[in-house]
């Protein structure tokens, strides 16, 4: 049985993912993220929207806030903030089953976002041919905190990072 904090990072559909731009400004996007068995997170981006990868290659420091419970089924939603170091791979992946973690990520995402099948439809392939040219991003958590009730005015609990090393 996962802890309430792990349930948040596993079940929330999106998180707010922040990288730092060249001038140090935070750039935040809502993205999907998959917790891997070794406690890292896998995210990915298309090379048609490569800014996240460019930012990470300049500055590895990133933030992940899991705070949007819509669609997660979590009945007592909390929030988790993670500070971590990210790497953005050099390779461009166009086979979503080439990497087992990426395959798990994509299958999870397809299950959660059925309408996203548009991206592989006849029209989607012509409008966004770059959509499945992907850069894999791995985040290694360094510190994490947990709000059990999404009361962001309260002092959060420190989260033991070993909790994120979940059994697959």
């Amino acid at each position: 049985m996962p802890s309430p904090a792990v349930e948040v990072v596993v079940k929330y559909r999106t998180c707010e993912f922040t990288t730092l731009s060249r001038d140090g400004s935070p750039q935040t996007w809502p993205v999907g993220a998959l917790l891997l068995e070794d406690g890292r997170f896998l995210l990915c981006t298309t090379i048609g929207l490569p800014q996240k990868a460019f930012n990470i290659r300049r500055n590895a420091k990133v933030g992940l806030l899991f705070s949007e419970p819509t669609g997660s089924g979590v009945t007592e939603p909390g929030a988790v903030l993670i500070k971590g170091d990210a790497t953005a791979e050099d390779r461009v992946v166009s086979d979503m089953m080439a990497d087992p973690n990426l395959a798990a990520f994509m299958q999870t995402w397809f299950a959660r976002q059925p309408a996203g099948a548009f991206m592989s439809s006849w029209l989607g392939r012509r409008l966004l041919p770059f959509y499945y040219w992907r850069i894999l991003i791995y985040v290694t958590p360094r510190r994490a905190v947990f709000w059990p009730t999404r009361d962001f005015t309260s002092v959060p609990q420190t989260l033991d990072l070993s909790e994120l090393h979940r059994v697959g």
Partner: protein
Amino acid sequence: MWAEAANWLAKFPEAVVTAVDAEGYPVSVRQTAPRYDAETGQMSVTWPAGIAVAEGPASVLCHSHDEKVWNIKAMQIKGRLERRAGDWVFISTAFTAPPGMLITFWRLSRTGRAAARRYLDKRGLTAPAVNWDAINELQRRARNSRS
């Protein structure tokens, strides 16, 4: 000047404020019922004890999606986080109203193609062939996992 940003912000019940901590990591917290001044572009921010943050560049993101992660809406305001009389204040510096879904797709189609082409050209790569069979198989598994 910030009326449009205020109007957009009012469409969302919450906002995510992100700034940078003393170690250089970005840190984010949500604000419920954000109070944004349409005249000054300023918003008071309640920053919880236990999350260190420093004055400097910051942003406000509002986003939403439905239960199936569709009907996605998002807006962002760039700015700075400053400490004033013991309180944290977000000060807007830039805002561009987000376009509608169709225009977003159309723009993404154009700008994404160009960005992808630049990315490949810079690395001497050719456009990779997508394994559509793999995508179809993963979508099939996803459908089965939902049923």
